[in-house]
């Protein structure tokens, strides 16, 4: 038994994420309709469904390979701003994960940080611009802090998910400075950023997947 997360966890994470995105498809699009063009839920659902379809025919053997599969599916199916951003996040996470069979806490945090950096590099948004960066940045920071505190993988993901959720909520009062919502200027304040909201949901799914004994952490007694 190990304190790391293997490809089975990565696969159940993405399956769970697909489910939660499908469940929140309409809510996410509603958020996007308020300050964007109302397609965010639709876009992500298309992408995550594609991941699930790919996973039905392929079973990548490392977390990195799973992330790579996800990245390619998201890039090719989502479109819009979110497609390249999520695609880049998973691609960078894949690169950071290398061909490790399991992600230990440090590697996990490194993958999350790489994902965050990928979003920033691609979208050039800063913290506070009211984008998904406002979920990914605190998530990556919280994961790093948890590793520094000696936490295990479940705690690292729990910390990341909680920080992403808080970060998403904190976008409510902000004025958007990137993406489609920025055209609204101050009229964008008072609404939650859809990409931050979806990021929080997806990171929560990662933590949930790690919490399930069947899902790649045999035993679940570690950490």
């Amino acid at each position, binding site marked *: 038994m190990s304190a790391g997360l293997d490809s089975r966890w990565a696969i159940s994470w993405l399956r769970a994420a697909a489910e939660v995105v499908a469940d929140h498809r309409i809510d996410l699009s509603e958020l996007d*309709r308020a300050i*964007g*063009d*109302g*397609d965010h839920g*639709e*876009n992500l659902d298309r992408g995550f469904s594609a991941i699930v379809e790919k996973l039905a025919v392929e079973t990548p053997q490392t977390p990195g390979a799973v992330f790579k599969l996800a990245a390619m599916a998201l*890039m*090719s*199916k*989502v*479109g*819009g*701003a*979110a*497609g*390249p*951003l999520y*695609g*880049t996040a998973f691609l960078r996470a894949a690169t950071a994960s290398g061909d490790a069979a399991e992600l230990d806490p440090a590697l996990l945090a490194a993958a999350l940080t790489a994902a965050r950096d990928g979003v920033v590099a*691609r*979208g050039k948004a800063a913290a506070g611009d009211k984008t998904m960066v406002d979920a990914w940045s605190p998530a990556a920071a919280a994961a790093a802090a948890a590793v520094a505190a000696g936490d295990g993988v479940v705690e690292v993901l729990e910390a990341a998910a909680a920080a992403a959720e808080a970060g998403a909520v904190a976008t409510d009062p902000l*004025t958007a*400075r*990137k*993406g*489609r919502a*920025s*055209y*609204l*200027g101050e*009229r964008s304040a008072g609404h939650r950023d859809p990409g931050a909201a979806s990021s929080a949901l997806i990171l929560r799914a990662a933590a949930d997947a790690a919490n399930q004994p069947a899902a790649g952490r045999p035993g679940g007694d570690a950490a």
Partner: protein
Amino acid sequence: MKKLINDPKAVVVESVEGFGLAHADLVTVHPDPIFIMRKDAPVAGKVGLVSGGGSGHEPLHAGYVGTGMLDAAVPGAVFTSPTPDQILPATLAVNSGAGVVHIVKNYTGDVLNFEMAAELAQAEGVDVRTVLVNDDVAVEDSLYTAGRRGVGGTVLVEKIAGAAAERGDALDAVAGVGQRVNANVRTMGVALAACTVPHAGVPSFELSDSEIEIGIGIHGEPGRHRIPMENADGITDRLLEPVLADLKLSRGEKVLLFVNGMGGTPLSELYIVFRHAVKVLGEAGLSVERSLVGNYITALEMQGCSISVLHLDDEMTELWDAPVHTAALRWGA
């Protein structure tokens, strides 16, 4: 919502199929991933031109594929940018070895997806240049936004850069003239009534019977502000004012005037707007050398129009006049 469609999810595929059937002399439709290609692409020695973006702006972009304009058009879902796995094969398919220019409207989604595709194409050894179109003066403060959007000017960039490629200009020259067109064109739009995205089923925004939205984009996203309904001359004044303020032209300069319908406005009304715009430009001492009036870049059935003014130089004028043969724009060929 009443639309001449079957399944909202099949709108783009079926429409592009129909387009391919109607214009089989000009284009080939690549079914999956979907893109529309000039029938004789790649044209030996010619720089390839690829544009694309969300669907719903027809005839943009498929209607501009053909001699003297685009080599490929890559349609996304309605109002959603296409993905790299469409843009990349389109880019590879039209590359004759002379490189490819991407003409991209400045929306985050379009920019990011074309950027990724360009990186992937470069990785496969294709030289790619990007012309970013951002002519919409409605977005006031580019520092705190994603920047000005690409709207009406896109059609002019595609025509003029297309002519440069057709006459054999090299990659940097084609991109350069496209960028020069973009630097010299400004556009402002107005909506009288919103449009309805098929898979959404409800109008993108609500306008009362007495309001109009000034500074509208081409996706039903909001504009600068709402004002009470005015007459055509008054609206034309309001659209031209920021366009001219931004262009800062001197008396005696030459312009192309483009009055574009958003899809649901009768042609007759566009000519009423054109008439007054000619007057306003004349009073500003500008000479309208070329013009275009019609539905060339639309937002489904939105009611409204946009006015673009392009500051012409001799080369742009010559390239504008050069032969073009596409489904939606044709002369001299």
